């Protein structure tokens, strides 16, 4: 099941955030709540899918020498389309992502996948790769967002209609978690934990 391997690759073995360590700007900035993290994760997945599809379809058409600029054009187009879409139909998400929405363009993940996978593979594998990487990214940022939200604001699913005040109103949130500092530190710990888990699994096998 080669396709499954590609998918799994994106989620675990080469998880963009936890292993490849790319696209970290967005990761740190937007993971103040689980919902924000999820929104960013899905946004990136959408762009990644779009760009992987187009680039895979055009892989024999785009001349090699101008491939990087061409990829950038494609990615930027999808990002702009996403921007327009969100601004018109999902304004709250648009605002939550803020400047990091256009910055998806420079999210190394997308360019890297275009360069190393989509431009060299057929359509279906490219779609799967896009999904895998995108969801791997989404997984990492959502979990990070949830942890930061839990300790930093005392809520889960804040920003939705299902917000739960986990520790009750008396909880004094540890603001540091929601601040940049907390993001850095938690991500560091998250990566470390992830490494340990993966390495143990590998050792077992």
């Amino acid at each position, binding site marked *: 099941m080669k396709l499954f391997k590609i998918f799994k690759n994106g989620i675990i073995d080469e998880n963009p955030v936890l292993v490849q360590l790319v696209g970290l700007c967005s990761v740190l900035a937007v993971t103040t709540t689980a919902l924000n993290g999820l929104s960013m994760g899905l946004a990136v997945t959408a762009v990644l899918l779009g760009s992987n599809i187009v680039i895979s379809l055009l892989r024999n058409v*785009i*001349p090699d*020498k*101008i491939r990087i*600029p*061409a990829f950038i*054009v*494609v990615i*930027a*187009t999808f990002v*702009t*389309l996403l921007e*327009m*879409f969100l*601004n*018109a*139909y999902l*304004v709250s998400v648009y605002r939550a992502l803020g400047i990091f929405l256009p910055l998806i363009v420079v999210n190394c993940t997308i360019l890297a996948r275009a360069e190393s996978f989509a431009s060299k593979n057929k359509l279906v594998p490219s779609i799967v790769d896009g999904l895998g990487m995108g969801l791997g990214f989404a997984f990492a940022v959502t979990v990070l967002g949830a942890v930061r939200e839990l300790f930093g604001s005392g809520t889960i699913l804040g920003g939705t209609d299902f917000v739960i005040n986990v520790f009750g109103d008396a909880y004094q949130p540890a603001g540091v978690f929601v601040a940049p500092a907390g993001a850095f530190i938690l991500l560091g710990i998250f990566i470390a934990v992830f490494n340990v888990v993966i390495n143990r699994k590998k050792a077992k096998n």
Partner: protein
Amino acid sequence: MKETIKLGVTLLIIAAVAAGILAYSNSITGPIIAEREKEERYGALLNIFPDADEFVEIEEDKLAEVQETHSNITEILEVKSGGSIIGYAISNFAGGYGGDVNVVTGINATDNTIAGISIGSHSETPDLGDKIEDPSFTDTYKGKPTTEKLVAVGSPSAANEVQQISGATISSFAVLTAVNDANDAYLRYFTDIEVAPIVEETEEEKQERLISELFPEADEFTEIEENILEAKSGGNLLGYVIMTTSKGYGGEVPVLTGINVDGTLSGIRVGTNSETPGLGTKIEEAAFTDTFAGKAATGDLKAVASPSAENEVQMISGATVSTEAAVKAVNEAINIYQVKFTDADVEPIVEETEEEKQAKLLGELFPDADEFTEVNENVKEAKAGGELLGYIISTSSKGYGGDVPVLTGVSTDGKLTGIRVGENSETPGLGTKIEEAEFTDTFVGKGTDSELKAVASPSAEDEVLMISGATVSTKAVVKAVNEAIEIFGSLN
């Protein structure tokens, strides 16, 4: 080279296709976004003008023209419905308690009334000044005419009255000023209604105007002495204009007093001052100054809530200090008139020098003394016929507004003869009560065995009066006196 061009063109094609796709997408999402942004921006205006469907900024040139005379206006929008103008929205700001208050005044073009107002950004006190955002306040502006100057009162009823929030005078006044200003701009620039031309006065011009208002029939004003003018008409003397100043709440208050040759006041005018806008500045208004006209120039004018007696004038509620400053200045002017221009047997109010003031205070503490000799910097001996009566000890302590100097008189048998408080910066009308006899008298006869303390109702040997509401000032004096007592103890 050819390949480079080919590559360049390919890239260009890709970019063009991308741009095309984006343009198409923009045509769909663009209007939706624009619509939403407009709603956010104009939501407040739509509350004021429910029938409006369009808001258009007026031309830059026109706005600049308006801003020349109304510099606080930031934006003017034409409010349209179905293509025709139904009103205007003028956005400006005025100084409030915590900073600028932004107000948007919506005016109906059809009948020149206020459609409503909306409060924008401000830094007024939460739960107090910010009540200007409440509908119960802003609604009182709805329907008011723009052609009359609005005034703020506790219970608005007349056509030109709007709400003044009790306890948030300055915030309310800020909104009032902004709205009146917007109305004025509207009438001047967007209607044909006649408005009094805006006069840019210099200080000199203002002074001249105020003087001529005191004697409208005069054709000539000549300065005969510093701060004293003769008012003449056709060579005949009508009266005098005397300029005095007095310390008010925010600083010096200059007053022009007009006195007719028959010994009655022709009126008073208050010049440029720093009293609290909307409150202390009411001393400039006719409602106050008119109560002086016709009063006899006998120099004992007093301000009360309901003036009736010959020597009573209007006390402005909530602006006691400003009122008293104005009255004091007028009484001084009357005194000058009496001394210079009549035979009345009056003592001129003379500005004492510091030394004279000091000497007077020393004399008050030891009325029988005929001689004061200095022992050291802070201690003087009071003697009568060579015999030592007691000491006057000078100390000071930090009060509310600065240092408070105190003179304490102690007789040789260890009892206080009294205290006197010197020049200080305590709150006028409150902290300055430490200068009054009602307070200082409670020190007379107190012993020097123990420290004095201030209480609400003094009775014991070591208790003096605590001035309610002026704790810090009182404590400063008590501290200074206790220090003086200590010094006295070390003298023996």
